[in-house]
C-alpha cells in the first residue's frame, strides 16, 4: 500500500462510472423504475464475475500487500458472515429472535471495507452491517442480542470500536462526522497541536485515526446524510461515507431516491467519490483503504458507493416477491460475491478442497456457538427497565422505580409481576 502522497484520485473512478451505460439507464427515471444497476466495467472492479483478476491502475496500488493468508481470511470471513446470516434467519423462524435483517449478497462490501479499518478507527453503522461487526471481533451471539430484545447494544462499543446498530437510517452519518471532528479537535488542541481545518495541504503522513459511517441507498434521501456530508466536507473531517447501494429501500428502488448515480453527489459537497463494485471484495478493500488514507492524512471525507444487491428480504418480516422480479434477483445471483471470490481463489490455487473444508468447519463451529449462545437466553430482570436512563441520579426515575418495586412486592414471593398479571386475567 502506498504510504506517501498518491497523485491518483478516485474522482477518476467516479468519472468512469458516470459514463457507464447501464448506470445511466438504471437511473433513467420513470421509464423503468424497477430496474436496477448492475456493476460493470464503469464501476471500479478488480475481480470479474467469473473470478478472473484484471488490472486496475487506481486500485492495484492499495492491494500490493494482500497475501494468501489475507485472501483466505477475507474468504473465510465472507463465508462465516453468510452462515451467521442464514443461521440468524433460522433462529428468527424458531422464535429465538424477533426480527433479522439479512445481509445476503452484501458480504463483500462489508468484509472488504471492514478489513481496511485499523483497530483505532471507529465505525458508526446502520442495522445490516453484521459482517462489519464480525470483522471488528464482535461475537455472533452478541450481534443477535439486540434482535432478541434483551439489550439495546449487544456489545461494548468502545471495546469493539463500533457503535451499536442504528435504526434511524441517517443519524449515524452525523455521529461519525462528529466523532471525526472530535479527532480533529484533539489534534488541534493537544500537545504540539496543529491546525485541523483550513490548515496546510496534506503532506501524506497519517496523523489521526478515521471513522467510517455505513448507510444505505435509502438513507441518502435523509436530510441528516446531506448535513453530515456538508459538515464533514467543510471541516475536512476524517470520515468515510460508505454507502451500500443494495438497490432497495424495503420496496423502493434506488431510482426513487436519486436521479443520478449516488456517487455523483460527492462532487457537490466538494469531496472525492468512488463507485466500486460492492460484490468485489478486493475492489472494496482497495477503495476503502485509499479513502481511509486520505482521511488520516488530512484530505477530508470520501463518499464510496458500493454497488451491491440485497438478495434476501429487507427483514424476516418482508416479502420481496411483492415488489421485485425473480429475473432481477437471478441476474444478481450470477454476480454473487462469495462465489466470485471463491472462483478467483481457486484460480490462484489459494483455495483448494482442504482450505474450503477448513472454512466450512469454521462456519459450523461459529454457527454452533451462535445457537448455544443465544438460544434460551433469559429475559433481563425488571430492574433493567430503569437502569442507565441517566448517568447521574434522577428523582423521577428513582421514584417510579421504587413505586414499581413496591407494586411487584405485593405479589407472591419470588413471582415476577408479569406472570402474576397473566394469572389474574
Amino acid at each position: 500500500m502506498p504510504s506517501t502522497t498518491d497523485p491518483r484520485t478516485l474522482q477518476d473512478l467516479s468519472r468512469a462510472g458516470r459514463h457507464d451505460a447501464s448506470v445511466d439507464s438504471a437511473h433513467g427515471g420513470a421509464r423503468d423504475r424497477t430496474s436496477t444497476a448492475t456493476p460493470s466495467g464503469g464501476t471500479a472492479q478488480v475481480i470479474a464475475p467469473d473470478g478472473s483478476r484484471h488490472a486496475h491502475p487506481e486500485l492495484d496500488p492499495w492491494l500490493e500487500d494482500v497475501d494468501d493468508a489475507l485472501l483466505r481470511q477475507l474468504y473465510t470471513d465472507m463465508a462465516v458472515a453468510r452462515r451467521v446470516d442464514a443461521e440468524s434467519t433460522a433462529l428468527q423462524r424458531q422464535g429465538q429472535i424477533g426480527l433479522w435483517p439479512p445481509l445476503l449478497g452484501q458480504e463483500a462490501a462489508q468484509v472488504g471495507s471492514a478489513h481496511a479499518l485499523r483497530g483505532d478507527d471507529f465505525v458508526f453503522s446502520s442495522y445490516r452491517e453484521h459482517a462489519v461487526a464480525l470483522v471488528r471481533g464482535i461475537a455472533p451471539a452478541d450481534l443477535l442480542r439486540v434482535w432478541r430484545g434483551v439489550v439495546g447494544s449487544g456489545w461494548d462499543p468502545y471495546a469493539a470500536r463500533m457503535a451499536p446498530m442504528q435504526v434511524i437510517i441517517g443519524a449515524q452519518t452525523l455521529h461519525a462526522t462528529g466523532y471525526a471532528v472530535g479527532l480533529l479537535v484533539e489534534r488541534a488542541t493537544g500537545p504540539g497541536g496543529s491546525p485541523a481545518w483550513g490548515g496546510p495541504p496534506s503532506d501524506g503522513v497519517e496523523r489521526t485515526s478515521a471513522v467510517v459511517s455505513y448507510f444505505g441507498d435509502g438513507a441518502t434521501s435523509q436530510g441528516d446524510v446531506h448535513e453530515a456530508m456538508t459538515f464533514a466536507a467543510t471541516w475536512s473531517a476524517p470520515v468515510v461515507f460508505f454507502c451500500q447501494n443494495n438497490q432497495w429501500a424495503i420496496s423502493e428502488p434506488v431510482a426513487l431516491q436519486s436521479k443520478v448515480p449516488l456517487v455523483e453527489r460527492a462532487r457537490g459537497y466538494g469531496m472525492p467519490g468512488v463507485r466500486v463494485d460492492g460484490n468485489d471484495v478486493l475492489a472494496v478493500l482497495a477503495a476503502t483503504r485509499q479513502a481511509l488514507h486520505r482521511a488520516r492524512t488530512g484530505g477530508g471525507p470520501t463518499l464510496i458507493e458500493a454497488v451491491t444487491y440485497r438478495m434476501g428480504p429487507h427483514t424476516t418480516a418482508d416479502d420481496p416477491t411483492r415488489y421485485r422480479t425473480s429475473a432481477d434477483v437471478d441476474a444478481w445471483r450470477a454476480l454473487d460475491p462469495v462465489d466470485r471470490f471463491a472462483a478467483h481463489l481457486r484460480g490462484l490455487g489459494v483455495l483448494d478442497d482442504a482450505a474450503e473444508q477448513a472454512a466450512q468447519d469454521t462456519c459450523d463451529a461459529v454457527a454452533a456457538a451462535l445457537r448455544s449462545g443465544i438460544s434460551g437466553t433469559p429475559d433481563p430482570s425488571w430492574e433493567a427497565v430503569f437502569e442507565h436512563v441517566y448517568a447521574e441520579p434522577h428523582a423521577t426515575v428513582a421514584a417510579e422505580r421504587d413505586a414499581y418495586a413496591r407494586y411487584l412486592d405485593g405479589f407472591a414471593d419470588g413471582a415476577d409481576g408479569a406472570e402474576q398479571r397473566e394469572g389474574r386475567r
Partner: protein
Amino acid sequence: MSGTTFAGALNTGLRRALADDEKVVLLGEDIGRLGGVFRVTDRLQREFGPYRVIDTPLAESGILGTAVGMAWRGLRPVVEIQFDGFVQPAFDQIVNQVAKMHARTGGRVRMPLTVRIPVAGGIGAAEHHSESPEAYFVHTAGLRVVSVSNPQDACTMLRQAIACDDPVIFFEPKRLYHVKGEVELEDLATAAPMSAARVVRPGDDVSVVTWGSHVATALDAAEALADDGVSVEVVDLRSLSPWDVEAVTASVRRTGRLVVVHEGARQGGVGAEICATVTETCFADLAAPPLRVTGHDVPYPPAKLERHQLPDLDRVCHGVDQVLGRAPLDPRAVAVSAATHQGQGSPAGAAPSGATSDGTAADAEDDGVTHRAVAVHDGQEVAA
C-alpha cells in the same frame, strides 16, 4: 442597576467552563467571530481558538448530530441553538439519539451535552423566535431540562449543566438577556443543586410556581397582592426535568393553593404535570383546585398581539384571585366541581362567583375526605 447582564453571566460561565475542562467545546451558528446573535459567546473564539468555539454550517440536526459524535469521542459539547423555533429540526437527534444513547449502550456511552436555547417571547420578534418548547423535552426520558431566571443562576447553572454527565436542555429566556444582577463564580460543590427549586418569596396563602422570565412576573404580582393583603409564595422551579416535587408539595401543603405560571401552551404543558402531581400527592391539603396561568393553545401570535399570549401581572393576580375564591373559576372546573359536589358542602374555589367569600369557612365531608375550605375576606385569611 449595576452588575452583570444575564447574557454576560452566561458568557462568564462559558469562559470558566472552557478554562476548567479542555474537553468542553462550543458549537453553533454565528458563535465564533460574531459572538452569537445575543453575544453570549462574545470573544470566546478569540480566547480559546476555532477548535474550542466552532462555527457550524446552518443545520440544527447537523449541529446536534455532530455534537453526539463529539460526545462519543469524549468531548463535552455545548450547543447553541440560535432561536427556540430552530430547535425543531434537531428534534430527532435530541429525542432519538441524545436522550437514549446512555440507555441504549447500557451506560457505556455518556452524552454530556448542553443545548442552550434562547427561549420564549416578549421581545417583539418574528415568527419562530418566541416559542416555549419545554414540554417536548420534559416529556422525553434521558434529558434534563432547566430554565434560568436570573444572572447568577445563568452563570452557575450553565456551569453545572456542562459539568453534568447527562444531556441538559438549557433554556435562556430572551427577555432576560439584558437584565443585570450581581454574579460571582460560585463553587459548584457548594452551590444549590441544578435540580433544586428555590422559594424566592415566602408567603402563606397561595403558592405560585413558575420559572424563567415569569419569576419576575410572579414577584411583581406577589408585591401587588401583598398590598391587597394576600401573602403569595413564589417558587422558582429552575429545573423542569427532574422537577423538585418535594419543594413544590411542601409549599402547597402549607398554603393549600397552587397557581402554576408558564408561557408555553397549556395543553400537555409542564403546568399540567405539576398540577396533576400536586393533586395526586396533596389532595387532602388543597383548599382549591390547582390552577394554571399559561399561554393560550394557539400558534404564537404576531408581535403586536403577544401581550395577549403572555402571562402578565394582571393575569397572575387573576389566577391567585381564582384559587382564593375571589374570582370565578374556569367554567369547565366549575361544571365538574358542581357535579362532583352536588348536594354537599362546597369547597372554596369550587363554587362559582366565590360563594364562600362571605368570610366563612366550611368543612365538607365527601366520601370521608375532609376538604379544608378557606375563605379570604378583606385580605384576611379567616379559617383553616
